[in-house]
């Protein structure tokens, strides 16, 4: 893995007042993304607009494709053409992207896709917030695989985590999702973009050896196998079919086992290196509020109020939502009375918490149908009930 300073061309250093959507575009440019293929969809469009506006001066390519299917297809072509690539969308577009997200997973193509979540199903609540695509992020494309998804809770984190997402996508050669939401996407806050020499960027691992030895894949349960770039003479072949290390189709159960084990293990087996959590007041906590994205900022208020009442409550915020922090929850469940899980859906990540807690502590789901954030009082009520 080669870590370098960011290319200053893409870094608009300094303090800004910007929303999460714009910060995602800036994060991508800072991370070295020079190819964006997108399709407009509320509430994510501002990311595409920002990238389109900045592309000429940065020397990047922006194209508005005919739909979200084509957007992710173009990202795959762009990545094998040698660029770092990204797109942005919301629920309905995320559904359309699933086909080629599967191809990107299978061909181990690095890319970053941001989902600024809105209420669903279907057209649902186009302009209003939700966290209803968390399971689609994990399981949305057909077939078995594992995935990486990050969830920012502020515009600053939208910037920071987009760079992190690019780095992870290069290290593990996989699509990485930014699972944000309408509230964070449209929230204006201070965003500080550091100077380029303070931004750490993982460079594409391009194969350099003899041409006849080149293999586009290495099924060693790690992700850092070198790629080739079109035009460099390696004559690579990539396919969505089950394939061998040369990239040629081998359609047998034996080869599928090799490929699937690799695709899953390169992420799950490195979960401890990938997962980032934000813990607060956990030392003496008897009840833990587990949250992510905008909901974690609502939970802060509920936790403060609970502490004022003398309740021992801590906060566990998922910065990395996938792979899920299984070990952490297993350990935690042995120590605490309850884990309270507020999310703007009818219970998605809470199922993972229940699975890992395995009955060792109470797990309380605090649902919200979407269209708004929780009332902190509702979370506080759940905390109080859990303490009894």
């Amino acid at each position, binding site marked *: 893995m080669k870590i370098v300073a960011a290319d200053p061309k893409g870094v608009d250093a300094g303090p800004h007042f910007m929303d999460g959507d714009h910060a995602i575009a800036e994060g991508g440019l800072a991370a070295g993304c*020079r*190819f964006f*293929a997108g399709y407009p969809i509320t509430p994510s469009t501002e990311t595409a607009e920002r990238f389109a506006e900045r592309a*000429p*001066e940065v*020397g990047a*390519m922006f*194209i508005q*494709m*005919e*739909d979200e*299917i*084509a*957007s992710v*297809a*173009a*990202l*795959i*072509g*762009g*990545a*094998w*053409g*040698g*660029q770092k*690539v990204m797109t942005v969308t919301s629920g309905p577009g995320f559904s359309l992207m699933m*086909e*080629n997200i*599967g*191809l990107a997973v299978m*061909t181990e193509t690095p890319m970053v896709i941001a989902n600024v979540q809105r209420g669903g199903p279907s057209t649902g609540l186009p302009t209003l917030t939700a966290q209803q695509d968390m399971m689609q992020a994990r399981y949305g494309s057909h077939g078995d695989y594992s995935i990486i998804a990050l969830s920012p809770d502020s515009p600053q984190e939208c910037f920071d985590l987009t760079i992190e997402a690019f780095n992870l996508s290069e290290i593990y050669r996989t699509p990485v999702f930014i699972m944000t939401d309408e509230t964070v996407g449209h929230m204006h806050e201070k965003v500080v973009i550091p100077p380029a020499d303070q931004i750490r960027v993982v460079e594409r691992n391009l194969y350099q050896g003899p*041409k*006849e*030895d*080149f293999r586009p894949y290495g099924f060693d349960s790690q992700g850092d196998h070198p790629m*080739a*770039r*079109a*035009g*460099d*003479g*390696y*004559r*690579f*072949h*990539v*396919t*969505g*079919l089950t394939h061998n290390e*040369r990239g*040629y*189709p081998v359609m047998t159960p034996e080869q599928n086992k090799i490929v699937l084990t690799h695709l899953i293990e390169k992420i799950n087996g490195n979960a401890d290196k990938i997962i980032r959590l934000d813990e607060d007041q956990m030392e003496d906590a008897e009840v833990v509020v587990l949250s992510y994205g905008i909901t974690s900022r609502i939970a802060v208020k509920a936790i403060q109020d609970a502490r004022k009442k003398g309740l021992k409550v801590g906060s566990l915020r998922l910065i990395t939502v996938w792979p899920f922090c299984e070990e952490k929850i297993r350990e935690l469940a042995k120590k605490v009375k309850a884990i309270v899980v507020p999310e703007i859906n009818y219970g998605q990540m809470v199922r993972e918490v229940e699975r890992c807690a395995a009955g060792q502590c109470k797990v309380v789901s605090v649902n919200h149908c979407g269209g708004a954030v929780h009332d902190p009082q509702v979370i506080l009520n759940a905390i109080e009930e859990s303490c009894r």
Partner: protein
Amino acid sequence: MSENQTAPGKGGNMLRLERMPHIWCPGCGIGSVVTSFVEAVKRSKLDQDKIAIVSGIGCSGRVAGYVNLDSLHSTHGRAIPVATGLKLANPEMKVVVFSGDGDLTGIGGNHFIHAARRNMDLLVICVNNFTYGMTGGQVTPTTPTSANASTTPYGNYEYPFSLPFLADAAGATYVARWTSLHSRNVIQSIEEGLQKRGFSFIEVITPCTTLYLRRNRLGDGVDALQHYQDNSILKHGADTRETQIDFQGKIVVGKFVDREKPTYLDAVNKCNAKLIGDDYQLYGKTIPEKEAEAEAKKQEGEAKA
């Protein structure tokens, strides 16, 4: 022979001989088109490292796996957007899409018209055998009315696309149609398409012996070639509105469209150069452009000296 090497012979190092035998049926026309493609690439003298091939799904989708170029075998219908991404990310590449009629104009129809509309610099070769072969002979957007397919077992009651008309109307700058019998013309058209800057579309009518011919009791591959021989009408520059193919009817062949228009990248560069001024560095200069620039600089230096 190591896996990456390919034996000399027909196609030279252009085919991945370690992947033979191929999957195509006896009498199928796809192999003829691949042979023409290989010949055209050789004649073009283009640097083969700078040619990429992208395909979708289906019998024709397998071409990418057999041709020894940078190759992507993508999802059903999505070859064109994958090729678009590859071309824009790496404009030095000549990107070729190899596709079948169902892949390109059924599930991929939207991508086809939009790439033509943008004048994306791609060469698109469509092997049109009037059927979805890989899945067992279903009706496609080009199946002639009344022809039998497994999903129109009592005859096709839909109207088919004429692909040259569609490509022309959507903005393609080069449009030709041949049959797999016309191998010399196919080679020449592919050669022209490889040299053309802009969206080039070449349709090649081919026999699907196992499904389309058998189901319609049209004989074998040789009978199909005889049909092409007897029914092809050569008409360069034909009005593409008059290129419809009826069941076992006449097939108008030839080069229908060859016009000049700025490509998508030309348009991007023109817009950005105007916006940014002298400091703008052209996005993705092609190799000839870079060479011309170097040459101009050299001459300028010599003139000063």
